[in-house]
């Protein structure tokens, strides 16, 4: 185990999230009922994804400035874990949505018709597909230096695509999802009580630290792998 204090912190924060997240008093919202507690899990996946993508973007720039392969490996692995978090956010969102958005007067297929038009879902799908293309592009180039350079440049482009697809367009359009044309989807003081924020912010930190931990493990594995290949 290396530099383990922040790993312990991440685990403790998650233990706190799991206990307090289920026990604290939450606002009695007639549409959400107890599912409002998903804020500590579903929304944190997206926060984790954004933070991991930011780290990936920074490492891509560092690679372009220094040409050190370590930054290239780190950039790739942080993006990979970020995509994992994004997929988990999407899946958990799909489950949550099926119990809170579906119109009980319509058949499931008809309800799906309105749900599928949600700007937030489309935006997140675009963002994830752009990052999926990053992995495809990267693995299709054989030459190591070329691969590192092209994928670092593409990573910057993919990060830039996050702005319109997640942070701007879905927030201008009306949506069933909180934080459409009004406010912020996660940090809006109107939808989450002060009580909930006591769990929400630690939860973000905890999930992100676990994501970083997984990414560092993958980076170290990749370095060992590369050393074996070069021997």
């Amino acid at each position, binding site marked *: *185990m*290396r530099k383990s204090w922040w*790993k312990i912190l991440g*685990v403790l924060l*998650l*233990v706190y999230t*799991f*206990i307090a997240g*289920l*026990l604290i008093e939450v606002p*009695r*919202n*007639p549409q959400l*009922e*107890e599912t409002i507690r998903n804020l500590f899990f579903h929304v944190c996946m997206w926060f984790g994804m954004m933070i991991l993508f930011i780290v990936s973007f920074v490492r891509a720039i560092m690679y372009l400035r220094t040409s050190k392969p370590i930054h290239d490996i780190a950039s790739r692995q942080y993006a990979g874990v970020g995509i994992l978090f994004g997929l988990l956010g999407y899946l958990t969102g799909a489950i949550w949505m099926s119990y809170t958005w579906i119109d009980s007067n319509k058949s499931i297929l008809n309800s799906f018709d309105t749900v599928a038009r949600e700007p937030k879902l489309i935006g997140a799908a675009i963002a994830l597909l752009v990052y999926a293309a990053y992995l495809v592009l990267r693995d299709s180039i054989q030459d190591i230096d070329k691969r590192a350079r092209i994928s670092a440049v593409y990573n910057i482009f993919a990060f830039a695509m996050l702005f319109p697809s997640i942070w701007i367009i879905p927030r201008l359009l009306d949506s069933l999802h909180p934080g459409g044309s009004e406010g912020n989807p996660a940090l809006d003081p109107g939808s989450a009580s002060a009580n909930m924020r006591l769990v929400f912010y630690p939860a973000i930190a905890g999930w992100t630290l*676990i994501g970083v*931990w*997984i990414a560092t*493990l993958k980076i*170290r*594995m990749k370095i*060992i792998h590369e050393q074996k290949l070069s021997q």
Partner: protein
Amino acid sequence: MKKLISILTFIFLMFFANAQEVKMADVMKENGKIYVVIAVMLTILAGLVLYLIRLDRKISKLEKK
């Protein structure tokens, strides 16, 4: 005028929504079954964390070689 009407309906709906009891899992909290859910979730978390720790240790060993 339109705005006023919509605001009034909104306030009325809010009042109506508050008048109705929002169904929460109050029984689950009362009889303590919520702790069973927490125990299950913590067990899964512990399993995943132990897996990560073992992986971390193994990688550290490989790095020393």
